[in-house]
């Protein structure tokens, strides 16, 4: 699963005039088996690309919903290797690209090189690291590139024009636009026009790069983003995993239904 492959996927979706649907759930939530089942259900329900959270307890970017998922996975003893194993098992049966979303300390404590190696072994396509901003991440990003992994740079509404250009010039094939100033899982507090405006700015600078839009997107708002490259839904899924567990139901079923619905709304 080379970085080439991730770009290809995006390009194929672009060629189909579709907006890629990405999901975010936490790897190992609530445990390895069900988490794998959830990923499968997501894949079967039509998600194009799957973000898999490698959660960190002392994260500073997650809202309540994703924190709950993270704490659930961690307190059930999920380790970094477990998450890689889930991904590996998933990839045995499914084509969808996997992007790991994590925090720097998870990578550091695993060892940077080791982490990249393991990503390769598990057929991971890309890495998002929330607390490793440009340009501090360049060394690691280069290492990723050398190992055929896409390191996905983050952009946000207050990224200055200069910075935007520099980041884009250093970025790999795919970038991620954080739709608003917030942690994950908050209500979308800016209008979608504004988000799309910034998306267009990014595209005008780097037309060849694919841009994922994330943060605050739910069943209610996803249709606004038709026509962009890709968008992610995360907290809404995590919230539903929590409620399914609380109701004694299999979260995979519910998540599958929601992803189906998201897919429909986006097409």
């Amino acid at each position, binding site marked *: 699963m080379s970085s080439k492959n991730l770009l290809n996927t995006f390009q194929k979706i672009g060629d189909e005039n579709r907006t890629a649907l990405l999901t975010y759930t936490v790897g190992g939530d609530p445990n390895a088996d069900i988490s794998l089942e959830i990923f499968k259900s997501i894949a079967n329900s039509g998600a194009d690309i799957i973000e898999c959270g490698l959660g960190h307890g002392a994260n500073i970017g997650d809202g309540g919903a994703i924190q709950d998922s993270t704490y659930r996975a961690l307190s059930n003893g999920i380790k970094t290797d477990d998450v890689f194993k889930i991904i590996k098992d998933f990839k045995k049966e499914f084509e969808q690209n996997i992007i790991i979303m994590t925090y720097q300390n998870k990578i550091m404590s695993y060892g940077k090189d080791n982490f990249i190696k393991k990503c390769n072994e598990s057929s991971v396509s890309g890495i998002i690291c929330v607390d490793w901003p440009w340009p501090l991440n360049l060394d690691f990003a280069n290492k990723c590139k050398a190992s055929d992994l896409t390191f996905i740079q983050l952009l946000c509404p207050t990224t200055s024009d200069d910075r935007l250009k520099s980041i884009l010039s250093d970025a790999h094939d795919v970038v991620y636009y954080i739709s608003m100033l917030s942690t994950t899982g*908050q209500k979308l507090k800016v209008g979608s026009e504004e988000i799309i405006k910034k998306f267009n700015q990014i595209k005008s600078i780097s037309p060849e790069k694919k841009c994922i839009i994330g943060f605050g997107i739910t069943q209610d708002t996803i249709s606004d983003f038709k026509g962009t490259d890709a968008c992610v839904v995360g907290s809404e899924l995590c919230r539903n995993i929590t409620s399914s567990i609380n109701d004694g139901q299999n979260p995979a079923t519910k998540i599958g239904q929601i992803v189906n619905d998201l897919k429909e709304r986006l097409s």
Partner: protein
Amino acid sequence: MMDIKKGVPLIDQHDENGYWGGVFGGNQIAESLNYPIEQLTKEFEILRHDETFIKERDYYFKNFIGAPTPFIKLENLTNHLGGAQIYCKLVSKATGGAHKAYNAVVHSLICKRLGKTYIGGDTGAGYAGKMLSMAAAKFNLKCKIFMGAKDVERQSINVFSMRSYGAEVVPVHSGSQTLVDAVSECMRWWTSENESSHMCVGSTVGPTIFVKICAWSTAQISREMKQQVLETFGEIPKDMKLINCVGGGSSAMGFWNEWIDHDNVELIGVEAGGPEGSNKHAAPLSNDSPLGVLHGATQYVIQDDQGEIEETDSISAGLDYPGVSPLHCFLKETKRARYTSATDEEALEAFQLVSKNEGFVSPSLEPSHAFAEAIKIAPKLSKDTIIVVDSCGDSAKDSKIIAERLGYKI
């Protein structure tokens, strides 16, 4: 080899990415925080060289915080221990009862300069939060304080103060429900609200600029103390040891700042050893914890093999933090300071000994850790050695805890 440069303020010895010694600190933050941090960094560089701002700072330090705080000899304790001469910088006399007031005032002034109307901050022992709400009330800022639910419980007197100053206190129920979670939650809040709001990090932790502002603010302690030392001894003593507790490390940095270049002054940091026999020390430096990234900065941090922060346990809420300032990591690595720890029990004993011998010093549990070290080493030292302990917090906030532990009926 890491080296400290002489003649350069310690806070400025980082590289262009904000790393001290090329390793500690930095800005490992979400992209959403990049702009406000850049803005703050620029503003602070201007303000720290702006005479009007310095005057304003000094006005509030003097007239509101009550600088200078006393520098006194602890005659009874010295006699009791026999050995080194023990002095005390009574920082607990700063308004509100701890050194946290300096940082709170500076951040509030910066907040106003930035044209922001809202300020938020984390707190462990509650002092950082108390002082920030105090300053916010004075400077007409709305204020939100994040505090671990466990700390809200055990430091309720300071919570009372925050509420009475009109601050909103947000109990944080995630994780260990202590300072580490409060800081995380505060940073999350700021991620969302940084356009209108300013964040004050309560210690010399967090992204580089927060480390710098905090250390720059508490430096008042050693600035005024240097004068007091000269007044008292006529010169800088040949053999002087400065002992300070270290949680995040803001108090120690402030206490040591002016002395970094004086090689004959030994700097001793005391971390929280936790309950005797427990492994949940909050002592990353003295226990050689591995390097990690916490709250945006690279530092030694107590963590498991998965990079997950481990729960710490300390009788003193203010020291109950798994990480430690990049500045202290740097001081440790360059061997400029030495770090050790004291247990809960040692701190309690020190509290009692100091209280009974020296009424005016009523250290909270945090500086009681520093006194514990002084009590350990003083008897073995010569009468020519001067030990100065920073009594950086007042015990009132700990009355419930101490009374329970010592079986006082109150």
